[in-house]
């Protein structure tokens, strides 16, 4: 803490992002994150391993696919097995034996999406555990406390999550509350040297609210009430200090819900236009291939989504032209691999026909084959995107990608065409 004499002190968050290349047309960037468990090339897709496991694949398999950062879920892990046990196991890294980076969310999203009887107040989110019925309060302090125990390399502030389809004063209330909750998270964060706390920009689909939220972060200084023992008078007055608060990265939250794609991309673009250039931008919950490519063009660096791993368990394999529903009869005698260009173990060894047969059995191995492939697909896509940015041919990459996905660049969905055009990439 700063000495009492100076009116303001600089509390600067670490610079964890190094920019390697920037697209001269769009806002796409290639970079490298410096994190406690190793470097991560960006743009990056982070698979979601909700309950300390990447579904049916081992840590070794995930590592072999080139994954260097994945997600764990604070809400789920906070309930089972609980932060105390994970701490005894040397954190989430130790518990699941994952040598690379972990990002945990705050638990806020699950509060709203999973828990039907949750109540949000200024204090936090009050809810009933679905497992033992006990009432719990998830406050900013509690969320950070759990994430400190989990020991993830990137932790998220608890935000007041409101569905993107909600309008009216609730959206504004949530936005301002999220700012207040960030300050409480920062204050409660006991391990700023080992764990990077990201802020989450809210504001729903209201451009004005989003802009306001962004301004609050980017203000030169925030007022933070702190108690400085050296200032204490016999009356125990609090000393108010001006401290510059900073965060190592930003997330764009509150999107990837039920909103229209047209509104979605405009909010992303608005956010990236105002966020600092030298800090990572994490777009939460985005994972469809087209969305990833467009949002990289709009200036996002990090993404997560359950889609690729979830859809794998339903028998769907991701390919450059969309997806293959391998349970369907048309694949019964298709002896080609899922994707002849794919380097993953599934495509190296197995045919669509075999996977089709296996998917119709009760052997779970079928699901694991597809999980491996779908994660490989996402990671290979991000790798290719990054290489094109570094090699200064990102716009061409986008045109080729859209051509493959939609048959013709002009058949690309309108929202994507417009979003790309807004950053200088034309598809025709």
């Amino acid at each position: 803490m700063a000495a009492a004499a100076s009116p303001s002190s600089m509390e600067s968050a670490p610079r964890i992002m190094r920019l390697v290349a920037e697209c001269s047309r769009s806002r796409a960037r290639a970079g490298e994150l410096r994190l406690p468990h190793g470097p991560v090339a960006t743009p990056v897709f982070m698979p979601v391993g909700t309950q300390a496991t990447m579904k049916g694949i081992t840590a070794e398999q995930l590592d072999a696919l080139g994954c260097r950062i994945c997600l764990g879920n604070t809400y789920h892990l906070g309930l089972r097995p609980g932060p105390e046990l994970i701490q005894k196991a040397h954190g989430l890294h130790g518990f699941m034996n994952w040598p690379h980076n972990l990002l945990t969310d705050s638990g806020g999203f699950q509060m709203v999406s999973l828990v039907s009887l949750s109540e949000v107040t200024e204090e936090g989110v009050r809810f009933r555990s679905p497992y033992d019925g006990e009432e719990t309060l998830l406050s900013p302090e509690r969320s950070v406390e759990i994430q400190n125990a989990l020991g993830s390399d990137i932790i998220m502030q608890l935000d007041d999550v409101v569905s993107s389809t909600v309008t009216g004063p609730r959206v504004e209330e949530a936005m301002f509350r999220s700012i207040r909750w960030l300050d409480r998270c920062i204050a409660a964060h006991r391990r700023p040297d080992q764990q990077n706390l990201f802020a989450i920009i809210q504001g729903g689909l209201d451009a004005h609210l989003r802009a306001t939220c962004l301004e609050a972060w980017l203000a030169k200084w925030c007022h933070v009430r702190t108690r400085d023992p050296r200032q204490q008078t016999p009356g125990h007055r609090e000393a108010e200090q001006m401290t510059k608060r900073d965060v190592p990265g930003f997330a764009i939250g509150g999107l990837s819900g039920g909103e229209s794609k047209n509104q979605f991309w405009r909010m992303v673009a608005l956010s990236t236009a105002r966020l600092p250039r030298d800090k990572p931008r994490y777009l939460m919950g985005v994972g469809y291939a087209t969305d990833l490519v467009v949002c990289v063009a709009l200036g996002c660096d990090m993404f997560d989504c359950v889609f690729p791993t979830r859809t794998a368990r339903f028998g769907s394999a991701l390919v450059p032209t969309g997806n293959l529903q391998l349970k369907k009869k048309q694949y019964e005698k298709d002896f080609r691999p899922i994707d002849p260009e794919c380097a993953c173990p599934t495509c190296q060894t197995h045919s669509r026909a075999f996977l089709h047969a296996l998917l119709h059995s009760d052997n779970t191995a079928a699901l694991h084959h597809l999980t491996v492939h779908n994660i490989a697909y996402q990671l290979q896509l991000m790798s290719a995107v990054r290489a094109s940015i570094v090699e200064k041919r990102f716009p061409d990459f986008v045109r080729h990608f859209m051509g493959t996905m939609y048959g013709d660049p002009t058949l690309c969905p309108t929202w994507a065409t417009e979003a790309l055009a807004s950053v200088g990439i034309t598809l025709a």
Partner: protein
Amino acid sequence: MKLSLTKVVNGCRLGKIKNLGKTGDRTMDVPGCLLYTKTGSAPHLTPHTLHNIHKVPAMAQLTLSSLAEHHEVLAEYKEGVGKFIGMPESLLYCSLHDPVSPCPAGYVTNKSVSVWGVGGRVEMTVSKFMAIQQALQPDWFQCLSDGEASCAEATSIKRARKSVDRSLLFLDNCLRLQEESEALQRSTIIGVIEGGDVMEERLRSARETAKRPVGGFLLDGFQGDPMTLETRLHLLSSVTAELPEDKPRLICSVSRPDEVLECIERGVDLFESFFPYQVTERGCALTFSFDYQPNPEETLLQQNGTQEEIKYVHQTKKIKTTGCNQEMTSFEINLKEKKYQGDFEPLVRGCSCYCCQNHTRAYIHHLLVTNELLAGVLLMMHNFEHYFGFFHSIREALKNDRLAQLKELIRRQAS
């Protein structure tokens, strides 16, 4: 193919089967087991995770019940089931049924046998059966046979006789069709010994089947409840005594460690490895010791961790499992139990498997409680490795004349 025995002691045969496989250069140890698969894949495992396991048997067991319905696909594929399932390097044995899922009785006729796949019943005449084998091109396959004499409680002599007659007829027809099939010239037919629990019929089946040019023998219908164990073991001894020494003897539906040893002592060479799969499905891990030359303290610690718990394991427990409503044995621990929640030891101390080298009991417990798929993957890796290690120790014990010690060690741990 050639079976070379290095030793026969107290009825137990130790040796190698040589000149196996399409290129004739593969070898298999006996006594040994076959890798259990479901629809051509080890349960829960991809080639990557399967390759993490040490001492995987050279030969895998495929089941016709899971593959028969894919006959057309395999026929069009043309390159054989080994390549189709992504195991081109493995020796393959195709059994009729899946030992884990008993099939309904009453469907065998003089002309056909039925198996049950996901899509329902597949009825096979001799010619259809052989057409399927032609599409599969396995290294070994169980001949079409009538195994129903062993299904019912008490077999009538008439039913036992019919099972032997039918199976011999099927065998003669299959052998004839094999002669005419180019594609099946390098596949070996395994003759099936039937006869229910009727001694006379069992002996007849053994003698008659032994007269045919089969590559080996499958001892069918020797599984059952503990009450009839003595009778069945006696029957088994009598049967193997009738079989030529230079051909391998397989047994189906017997996989528990104690029963495996009993059968080895009665001249059986090869076993199925479905027991570790059943253990996995009930969320359990094999922990029984097969270290017959141990530090005595180490053995007890390896099992469960404390002296008191040794007494505890002698109780059997009923656990609901997926598909196989089997009781838990005393060869295993149940990772769902609350006491493992904070246990940061590996499943078995000193185990070299991927799971024990990388994870803890607490983690497996968490995966089971949260219903995560990885639980099955990790438990399967451990249970297979443990089981294959057990077979390795049987061979070592036989080599070093220590089978009595191993048998005593297993007997002490059986409930």
